C-alpha cells in the first residue's frame, strides 16, 4: 500500500528567465518559484494498478520523482506500508521499483550487467541476483540479448532491460513513467503483460501514461493531475462515469475542462 498526502514541490526560477504570456497566466508561477506540484493526494493498495494521467507539463513526472525519492517534497507525505519515504529515503528505496521516462541504461554494459549492477546496489547476493535475473529474463523474453551491450539494443530491448532493472530487487511498489512510449506493439504487449503479472502478485503499480486504452485494459484507479493538483482521484468506473458515453477520452477532457472552468 502506498499513500500520498498533499504533496507539494516548487523549483526556483532563474532571474534571467523571462516568462511567456501563457506562463504569466499560469497559477503555478509565483514570485521566483515554479510550483510544479501543489497538492497531490492518492493511494494505491496491494494488487491495484493506478494510472496517472495529465497533459504534458501537468506535474506527473515531478510527482513520480517525489514518490521515488529522487526529489524531496516541500510538504506532504509519502507512506509505503506505513513507513515515511521522506524521513527515511534510503530504506524506502529498497521498497520502490522506479522506471523513468528515459530507459536510463549504461550503453557500454550488457543487459545482464545493467540489471546486475542495480541488483548489487540494492544489496542482493550474487546467488539471489543470478536467480532473479534468470527469472526476469524469462518473463520478459530477454535471454536472446542478455549479453548484448545496451548501445546495440533496439528500443524494445532497452525498455525490457530497464523494466528488469527497475524490479530486480522485488520491490513492494512499482512506479513506471510512461513505460510504453515509443515501443512497438509486441513490446507494448510484453510490458502490459508484465504489469498484469505484478498485479497478480499483489504489487501496487503506479504508472503514468497518455494511452487510455492501456488504462482501460489494466487499471483499477485513475488519478488526473492538472496544473500540479490531483484534479481527479477515483476508481476506473468512477472515471468512466464522468462522461455520458463512458468514453475515457471524454472523461479525461471533462476533468480538465472542469478544472479550467
Amino acid at each position, binding site marked *: 500500500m502506498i499513500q500520498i498526502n498533499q504533496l507539494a514541490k516548487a523549483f526556483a526560477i532563474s532571474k534571467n528567465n523571462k516568462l511567456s504570456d501563457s506562463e504569466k497566466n499560469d497559477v503555478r508561477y509565483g514570485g521566483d518559484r515554479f510550483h510544479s506540484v501543489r497538492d497531490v493526494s492518492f493511494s494505491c493498495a496491494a494488487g491495484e494498478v493506478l494510472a496517472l494521467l495529465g497533459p504534458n507539463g501537468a506535474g506527473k513526472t515531478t510527482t513520480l520523482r517525489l514518490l*521515488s*525519492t529522487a*526529489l524531496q517534497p516541500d510538504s506532504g507525505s509519502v507512506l509505503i506500508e506505513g513507513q515515511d519515504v521522506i524521513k527515511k529515503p534510503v530504506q524506502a528505496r529498497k521498497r520502490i521499483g*522506479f522506471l*523513468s521516462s*528515459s530507459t536510463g541504461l549504461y550503453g557500454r*554494459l550488457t543487459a545482464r550487467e545493467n540489471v546486475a549492477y542495480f541488483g548489487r546496489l*540494492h544489496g542482493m547476493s550474487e546467488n539471489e541476483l543470478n536467480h532473479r535475473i534468470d527469472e526476469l529474463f524469462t518473463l520478459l523474453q530477454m535471454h536472446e540479448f542478455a549479453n548484448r*551491450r545496451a548501445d546495440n539494443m533496439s528500443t524494445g530491448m532497452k525498455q525490457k532491460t530497464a523494466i528488469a532493472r527497475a524490479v530486480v530487487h522485488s520491490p513492494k511498489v512499482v512506479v513506471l513513467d510512461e513505460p510504453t512510449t515509443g515501443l512497438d506493439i509486441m513490446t507494448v504487449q510484453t510490458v502490459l503483460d508484465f504489469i498484469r503479472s505484478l498485479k497478480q502478485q499483489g504489487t501496487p503499480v503506479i504508472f503514468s501514461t497518455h494511452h487510455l486504452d492501456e488504462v482501460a485494459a489494466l487499471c483499477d484507479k485513475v488519478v488526473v493531475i492538472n496544473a500540479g493538483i490531483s484534479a481527479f482521484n477515483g476508481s476506473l468506473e468512477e472515471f468512466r462515469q464522468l462522461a455520458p458515453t463512458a468514453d475515457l477520452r471524454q472523461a479525461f477532457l471533462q476533468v480538465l475542462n472542469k478544472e479550467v472552468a
Partner: protein
Amino acid sequence: MWQVYQKELLELMRDKKTLMFVVLLPLLIFPLLFGLMGLVMSNVSRQAEAEEHRYVIIHAERAPAFADALFYHKNFKKVETDLTAAEDLKQAIRDDKFDVAIVIPADFDVSAENLNQSKWQLIHNSSSQLDMISKHFNDLLKTFSKKLQQDKLAGLGVSSDKVAAVLEPVTVERINTAESRENIGEKIGGFIAYLLVPLVLAGASYPAMDIGAGEKERGTLETLLICPISRSAIVLGKFFTVLTTGLVSAALTVISFGGWGYLIGSMAGVDVVAKTMETLGFIDLTLILALLLPLSAIFAALLLSLSIYARSYKEAQNYIGPVTMVVFMPLVVAILPGVELNWKTAMVPVLNVALSIKELVKGTIDYLLLAAVLGSTLLIAAAAIAFCVSWFQKEKVLFR
C-alpha cells in the same frame, strides 16, 4: 560506493576515448617526443654540417694562407665578385648572390715585422640558430691567427716555449659546484611538470565528463539516485573513478617517461635524455608520483563538480576547457627563471607541485618544503572532495 566505482571503471575501460586519453597518450607521448627531438636535432645538425656557404673574399692576396684554407674547406665555395664596399656586399647577400663576404683590409700585412692590429670584416646573416658560417670562419681564423702570433712573437725574440705564457699569462680552472644533475634539472625540470600535470588533467577530464554530465544526458543519474545508497557514496564512487584514471594516467606517464627515456637515451644516444635518466632514481620518481596523487584528487573533485553541474556533455566541455587554461598558468610560471620553491610558492596549488618536481629532478629538493607542498595540496584536496560531495546533494545541481 565500491559497486559504483567498479561499474564506472568497467564502463570506462570499454570506452575507446578513455583508453586513448588515459593509456595511449601517456604511453606514446614520450617516445614520440623523444624520437621527434632526436630526429629533428640530428637532421638539423647533419644539414648544417653538409651545407655549402658561397663566399667572396676581398683582398685575398693579403692573406694567401687564410684564403687557401677557406678555398679548400668543404663547407665553403668561392664566388667571384667585383664589389668591394661593405654596403654593396651586404645588399648582395640580401639578394642571395652569396652567403658570406670576408673583407681583408688592403693594407693587411702578414710579415712578422708588422705589429699593427688589423680589423677584418665578416658580413653574413647570423640569424640562424646554429650559425655554422661563424663557427667555420672562427675555426679557420683561429688557426691562421695562431700561426701569425707565433711568427710575430718569434720576430720579437720570444721563443716558442714562452708563447703560451705571453699570450695567456693567467689561466683559470673553473670548478662548478652545481652538479650536472642540477644543471639538467634546471633546464628540463619545469618542462617535465609542464608535461606531467596536463596529462593528469587530461586523464581525469574525459572520465569526469562521462560519469557526471554523461550520466545526466543518458538519463541514468535518476535511476542511480533512487538506489538505496547515499548520495555521498555515489559521488565518492565516481570521485575515486576519476581519481584512478588521473593517477593511472600519471603513473603511466612516469613509467613511460622512465622507460622510454632510458631506452631512447641509451640506445639512440639522445644526450639530454640519457643524462636526465641517469640522475633520476626510483625514489625521485615515486616522490613525483606522490606529489601528483593529491593534485589528481583536486582535479578529480573539481572536474566532477563541474561535470555534475552541467546539463550535457557539451556543457561540461565548456566548463572544463577554461580549467585547463587556469592549470597551465602556474605551470608557465614554474618554468620562468628565478621562480623557486619557497614557503610562499609551496602554498600555491599546481605551482608548488610543478616547482617540487623541478627540484626533485635537480636533486636539490628541501624535504621540509616538500612536506609543506604535500600538506597544503592534501588540505586543498580534502576541501575539494568535501565540496564535491555537498554539491552532489543539491537538487538544483542534479536536476537543472
